[in-house]
């Protein structure tokens, strides 16, 4: 650590970006623990080597998170073959959003509906809503066209609305 101000500086950054990065990491990992490992690795890499780079810090951090998640997935694939590791992947039941007493049922309904979204729609939704990336940035990150990103986003919102409306009717 260089000095106290440096220490405060990265902590401020981490408090600001950490929750969003964790949410994004959870789209590309199998468990919360893996997502936390990925966020740690990506943040340290960003802070050491990339924070002076021009451009949007969040976009750089997301790139770093995705790369770390891909690296982890590659390693895990090899390990799974040896250890026959089986788990629920994205079905990890740990809450994704902060709980609040008055709207907890609604949060659970949103989380459940999000889990049922196709993966490619869910990742675009997360990158747009919580990482606050533009469609151009999302397109660059996921190697798709901006139009595709925008379409997936609209499909995701429409599917969520349908699920939540059905849940309201039954609940």
């Amino acid at each position, binding site marked *: *650590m260089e000095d106290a101000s440096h220490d405060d500086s*990265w*902590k401020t950054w*981490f*408090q600001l970006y*950490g*929750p*969003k*990065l*964790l*949410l994004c990491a959870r789209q590309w990992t199998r468990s919360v623990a893996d997502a*936390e490992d990925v*966020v*740690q690795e990506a*943040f*340290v*890499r960003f*802070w*050491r*080597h*990339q924070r*002076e*780079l*021009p451009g949007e810090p969040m976009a750089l951090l997301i790139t770093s998170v995705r*790369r770390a998640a*891909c*690296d982890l997935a*590659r*390693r895990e694939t*090899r390990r799974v073959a040896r250890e026959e590791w089986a788990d629920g992947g994205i079905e990890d039941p*740990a*809450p*994704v*959003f*902060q709980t609040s007493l008055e709207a907890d049922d609604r*949060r659970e309904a*949103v989380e459940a509906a999000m889990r049922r979204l196709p993966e490619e729609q869910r990742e675009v*939704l997360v990158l747009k*809503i*919580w990482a606050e990336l533009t469609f151009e940035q999302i397109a660059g990150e996921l190697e798709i066209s901006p139009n595709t990103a925008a379409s997936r986003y*609209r499909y995701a*919102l*429409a599917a*969520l*609305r349908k699920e*939540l409306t059905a849940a309201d009717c039954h609940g």
Partner: protein
Amino acid sequence: MDNELSQLEAELKALRPVAPARHVQARIVRELGRGEGAARVTPSARAWWRWAAVLPAAAAVLILLVFFVRRVPPASVGENIAATTAPATGAMVREAESAPVFKPVSAENVLYAVADEGLVTLDDGTAARRERLSYVDTITWKNPRTNASVRWTMPREEVRVVPVKFQ
């Protein structure tokens, strides 16, 4: 987008993602406090011969670029007089402006191989798995005034020692 979707969008934006557990921050403190040559990320001694080949080449490219960028066309006599009679601060500003300024514009790390080196025993007797990861790092620097750019590509190896728990 219709009004109902906009409402849903606003509702989603109001949801706050869960923060990483406190131990993640503690681990980052340890990682950032650790030097580049720390136990978790250790450049392999075997990579040094590659560094030895890459570093002089990169240095040579940089020196050539600096040499070409600093070559200013010869000024006329009148300009020379103006330059010598100009206030010192003006001359300093021009000197600063003409100095090559290379700024990093992108950094990329590509993982191209992972080798599992099996179980090892640490000094404290605990078992750990050792993995060797091979990367190619590419850093691009650019001088915004001249558009000159330098790309520096170097191989890097990381050795990770991950404690193993037997249940």
